C-alpha cells in the first residue's frame, strides 16, 4: 500500500497552498486519508510540466479511491472466492443465522460480504463495524483471508 511519503514525492512540492492546506506534505496525508481529492491540487492538474507526476499519482491512488467508506479494499484478481470472510464477518453472522453463520452462502439481504461470480463483493457497507462515528476496529474479514485479497487503508 502506498504511503504519504510516496504520495508527497508526486506532488509539485511548492507548498503553494492552493489546495487549502499549508504544505504539499499535508496534502499528501489528506489524500491518503481521503479527505482531499487529487483535483484539489490545481497546479498539478493544470500545469503540463506535472503531467507525468499526475499520471503516476492517479495510478497509485486508484485502489485507495476505490475503497469503500470504511476503507475496505478488495482485490478481486487475488480472491479465491473461499467465503472465509463472508462466514467470519460478525455482522454477517448476526444478520444471517441460517446462511453465512453456518457456512452457507448469505440468505439475508443485510449481508455485507458475498461471493459473486467467484470473487468477494461488498454490499451494505454501512452495516460494517468500521463504519460511522462509533466504529470498532474489526478485522475478521482481512484476518481470515488466505490470499490477502481484502485489506483496509
Amino acid at each position, binding site marked *: 500500500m502506498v504511503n504519504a511519503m510516496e504520495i508527497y514525492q508526486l506532488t509539485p512540492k511548492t507548498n503553494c497552498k492552493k489546495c487549502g492546506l499549508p504544505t504539499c506534505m499535508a496534502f499528501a496525508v489528506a489524500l491518503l486519508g481521503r479527505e482531499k481529492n487529487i483535483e484539489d491540487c490545481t497546479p498539478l492538474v493544470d500545469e503540463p510540466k506535472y503531467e507525468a507526476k499526475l499520471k503516476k499519482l492517479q495510478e497509485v491512488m486508484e485502489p485507495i479511491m476505490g475503497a469503500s467508506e470504511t476503507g475496505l479494499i478488495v482485490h478481486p484478481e487475488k480472491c479465491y472466492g473461499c*467465503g*472465509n470472510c463472508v462466514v467470519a464477518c460478525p455482522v454477517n*453472522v448476526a444478520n444471517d443465522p441460517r446462511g453465512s453463520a453456518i*457456512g452457507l452462502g448469505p440468505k439475508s439481504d443485510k449481508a455485507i460480504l458475498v461471493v459473486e461470480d*467467484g470473487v468477494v463483493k461488498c454490499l451494505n457497507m454501512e452495516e460494517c463495524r468500521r463504519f460511522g462515528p462509533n466504529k470498532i476496529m474489526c478485522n475478521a474479514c482481512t484476518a481470515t483471508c488466505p490470499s490477502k485479497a481484502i485489506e483496509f487503508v
Partner: protein
Amino acid sequence: MAVCTGCSLLCEDIEVALDGGKMGKTRNLCRKGLGHFKSIYLDRARPAVDGKEAGIDEAIDKAAGILKNAKKPLIFGWSNSTLDAQKAGLELARELGAVVDDTSSICQGWIVEKVLRKEIPTCTLDDVRNYADVSIFWGSDPSSSHPRHLSRFSYYPRGEKRQRGYEEDRTAITIDVRKSPTADISDEYYRVLPGGDAGLVEAMISVLDGKIPRVEDKKKLISLVTNMKKSRFGVIFPGLGMVYSLKGRKELLDALVEKLNQSSRYSVIPMVGHYNMRGFNQTLLDQTGFINRVSFQDGVESGPEHSVMEAAKTCDAALVIGSDPVSSLPAAVARRLAGMPVVAVDPHRNLTTDVARVVIPSAASGLEAGGSALRMDGVEIKFDGVVESERMTDLEILARIKEGL
C-alpha cells in the same frame, strides 16, 4: 440452488442466474467452481473416429467394436461420473472381463481404503461443523484445492456445539512442507521436511507416550501435541503431502490415530480431489470387496498388477471416462496408453481425447446432467443439471456401448 461438482465438497448452495438458457451471474460459487461451471462453454469434445469427426452412433459402434475385440481392456477414470454411471460402467466391465482402476490407486487410495474398511475412525463434514474443535490439515492446502472447506465446515462456521466463532471455539493446525495459504490463516503452522512425515508421526507418538521426542525443536512439537490432545473432537484432513510421504509406513497413521483416541476423539477425512472419487471406491468395494485395481478377467481379483500403471503395460485397449491420463500419469504410462486403441468419453477435449481412436462427448455431470455422488466424507449428495444439453450422459453412453457389444 445448484450443486457444484468442481471438487469433492459438492457445495449445495450455489445460485445461478439463467439468461436465455445460458449461465449468468453466480452466487456462492468459489473461483475454482466458477471455472468449472464456465468450462461447459470451452473446449468441448466432439464425436470422432480415427481423428475424423463422426456421428455419435458411429462413434459408439466403433467403441463397442474396439472393446469387444480386446483381450484385456482397461477401464480408467470413473471419479468424475455419477454413482449410477459408475454402476453401469462396472456392469460393462464385468461383461468385458476388463481391468478397472482410478487415480485413487496412485494417490489417496490407501487412506480412503482404511476409512472405507473402518480401520480408522471417520465422521461427516456436518459433524466437523457441529462439533470439531481441532482441524488438522496435514499435507493438504484446502484454500487452494477445496476453497470452501474452511468456511463451510472445518474452521469458520458456527455449529451446534461451536457457537462462539473460530477464535474461541476452534483451532486450525497446518502441517506442511511449505507455508501454504491455509497455513497462513491457521492458528498453528508446523513445518515438516519433505519426506519427514513418518519421523514426525513417530515423534508425536513419543510425546503422547510421555517420552521426549527426538526432534530438533522439542518445545514446538510438545506444544503442538499438547494442543492436539486437548481436543474433544479432532479431525485430521490428510492431503497428498501426507499420502506420498507415509506411503511406505502406512501403519503409522493407524498408530497415531489410535493413540490420540486414547485420550480424545479423533477422526480422519481424506481430502479426495475429484467430485466422486470416494463414490467409485465405495461402489467398487460394495461390489467386489476392493476399492480399486480390480480385474474381472477371471472372476474378481485385485492386486498391484491391476493398477493403471501396470495394466497399461498388459492391456490391449482402454476406455477412459472423464479423465485425462495421458496428461496426468507418468510419461511412460501415458505413452503406453497412447499406443493402444483408446475410447475417450469426456465433456472436454484434452490430451487423451486427442490421441483416442474414438471420442464420445458427454454431458458435464452436475452442469448438464443430474445424478448423485459421495462427498469427500461419504455423504450422498443428489443434484440436477443446471443448463439443458443435447449431449448424452455417461450413464447413457455406457449403456449404449454395452448394447453395442
